[in-house]
């Protein structure tokens, strides 16, 4: 199998991964699945990079992929934290609930909102204030009244 045929195969796999991810991202409303789809697109791009790097005999592509993996890991942590917070706010993973953040007076695409009887099931702890509370300076407040 020659080099370009090998490249083609990898590119097809990459494109398939990317396309699946894209379609998934557009069609699904579950936030975790959307997140997975986004990761899938990222992997599609990574496969592309590795393939081209191999084709050009250049390690730059692979190096870039290592970076992408690292960044993707960080991004995953943050994204999941955001998803979790959103879930706690609404009790649902449906992204359509958050279209209430649209501009005022715009119609909703999907009639979906947080159910009125939803109660957050868990109270999260608050940070205690730190540092020293400044005392009011009595001398600053009162002054000599006479000339």
């Amino acid at each position, binding site marked *: 199998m020659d080099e370009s045929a090998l490249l083609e195969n990898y590119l097809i796999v990459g494109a398939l991964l990317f396309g699946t991810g894209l379609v998934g991202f557009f069609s699904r409303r579950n936030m975790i699945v959307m997140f997975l789809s986004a990761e899938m697109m990222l992997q599609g791009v990574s496969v592309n990079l590795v393939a081209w790097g191999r084709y050009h005999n250049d390690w730059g592509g692979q190096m870039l992929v290592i970076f992408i993996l690292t960044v993707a890991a960080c991004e995953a942590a943050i994204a999941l934290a955001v998803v979790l917070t959103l879930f706690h706010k609404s009790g649902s993973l449906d*992204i359509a609930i958050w279209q209430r953040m649209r501009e005022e007076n715009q119609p909703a695409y999907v009639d979906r909102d947080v159910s009125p009887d939803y109660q957050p099931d868990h109270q999260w702890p608050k940070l205690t204030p730190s540092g020293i509370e400044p005392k009011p300076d009595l*001398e*600053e407040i009162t002054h000599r009244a006479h*000339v």
Partner: protein
Amino acid sequence: MTPGIPTLLILIPALPLTATIVTAVFGRSALKQNSHRPVVLALLGSFVASLMMLAQVRQESEAKPSQMVGWETSVDLWNWAEVPNALNTPPAAHSASVQGIEHGLPAALPFRIDLTLRADALTSIMLAMVTFISLLVAIYASGYMHGDRGYWRFFSYIGLFVFSMTMLVSASNFVLLYVFWEAVGLCSYLLIGFWYEKPEAAAAGKKAFLVNRIGDFGFALALFLMWTTYGTLNFHDAHGIAGILGQTRLADPELYVGGGVATAICLLLMLGACGKSAQFPLHIWLPDAMEGPTPVSALIHAATMVTAGVYMVTRCTPLFMVSPDAQHVVALVGFVTAAIGGVIAMTQTDLKRVLAYSTISQLGYMFLGLGVATLGGITSGMFHLFTHAFFKALLFLGAGSVMHAMGGVVDMRRFGGLRRLMPTTHWTFLFGCLALAGVIPFAGFWSKDAIIAAVQERAHDEPEFLYLYWGALVVAFLTSVYTFRAFFMTFYGSERVPYEAGPNAHESPTSMTVPLTILAACALVVGAYFERTEGFAEFIKLTPSLAYEVVNSKNVEIVSQSHTLVGAISTLVALTGMGLAAFLYLGDESQVALLTRLLMPLYLLSHGKLFFDQIYNVLFVWPLWTLAQASYWIDRVLIDGLVDLVGRIPPKLAALLRPLQTGMVQFYALAMVWGVVILIFTLLTWPTH
């Protein structure tokens, strides 16, 4: 080894400046309630230096080189500004070059400002007076201001003030004089508004500053006019150009421009002096300035800063000599101010205000003396400045001591009979009153009499001055009455203490009584000492500005027959005034009520301060306020409206794009993908050539 005059001249302002910086930097964190120490120490140093300089100047003056008119010396520190060929058209007056007898000029004169200090008789006596009073006031204030949370700030300002004032009197250039003229005004503003939480104090500071602006505007115009007339702003001869008050010009009076220009310069200078020295019609700021701490009133608003105008006019005597009209204006303004101050002071009930109006009145006396424009008149004006500094500082500090004990109450109707409670304050205040009223042998007698005598002597030449002479005697009577009215109301009668004073009102601490005692001693002796030795006039006469031939030519005998007569009359007047005050205010005050009812219109006029504030409100404040409101409306409605109109365009544009914000994440992603697809498609199909 004693340091020479140049060293002393630099040292005198440098010490307070250093103390100011030290206090300002370390006062809040480190010095705190010790903040007075560096300042008192520096002022002591300055005072000692001033005395040494006074002695040396005296020595030098008596052994002056024969070709000199008077005696002066100057120290160049550095060059501040230099614009070559600044004045191309030859000035109206021939700015004679120093060496060349020709009046031929260089084609263009440079605008050159050197930081130059000068020493002469006038400067050295002013320096000694300023540093002495400020030293005593600083010591007094360390007791008076004790416990104030702005303690360090106060002493920092005091140091700055003494620095500015000493620089003002030792500057040898009109620009420097102007700079430090403004600097003392700034210190005055800062110290009037020292208790800035009080709305009255803040307003008084603002008023003082604004009223002074009018005077300073005149002063600035005078500077411009002098520059175009004489082509220099130096006092002394420097760099081959004869200074305005320099030896070359003094030796040859032809070099002074006369006529309308001279009158304009003098009147503008006088406007500046009116602002700073609280002369009619700009006197209205001084009574309000009493909102500041009392040591400040004593130092700045009685003894030193307000006399800057008198100093300036004295310094510029040669300029006034060529304009008799200006002399008449000075004399008239001085007399009118003295009369106004005296009349208003008669009925005020606020102890500090009585003293403030008395200061205005006495400053009027000084200007009256200067306006007489004979050597006797000018030296007596300066002499009065000198003695007044001692006894008025004493009176203010005494009033401060009373306020200190009375818990800040200054209304004389609310206390009385304090002589047993505060014995030291009582007798020192009495000395101040005797000096102010002009009772022999206290300081005020000698200087005030010298002025009145000078006026009377001038009346021999010009009969119009006879009116001023009688007027001055009437004012002397008023002075005596209001002074002793205040004295009797405060210290005699039944003992009354306001509730603010608390149960154990007592005499002030030693740090306050000691300066009072020293000043009381000065109020007793300075006049008599200098008068007996003829020292003051003889010494001041050695100033180049006053040693001038034209002044000397009018030098009628300083002591003459009429002087004794005038002395006798004015003593009689003073004693009558005292007697009247005693008759009215000792015992029950039924006569006062009767007199008030009899002279109701006069009483109302005096009590309302001749309604100057109200008149100025209608004439100036209200129109300006209306104008400001109109401008405000134009700004608010027209200009802001235009700007707001421009600001409304972007939101309208943005409203068109608003439907795109659907809140659906997928929609945003799709838009992004479509964007990329369109970009790539365009890139691929873009015609390359």
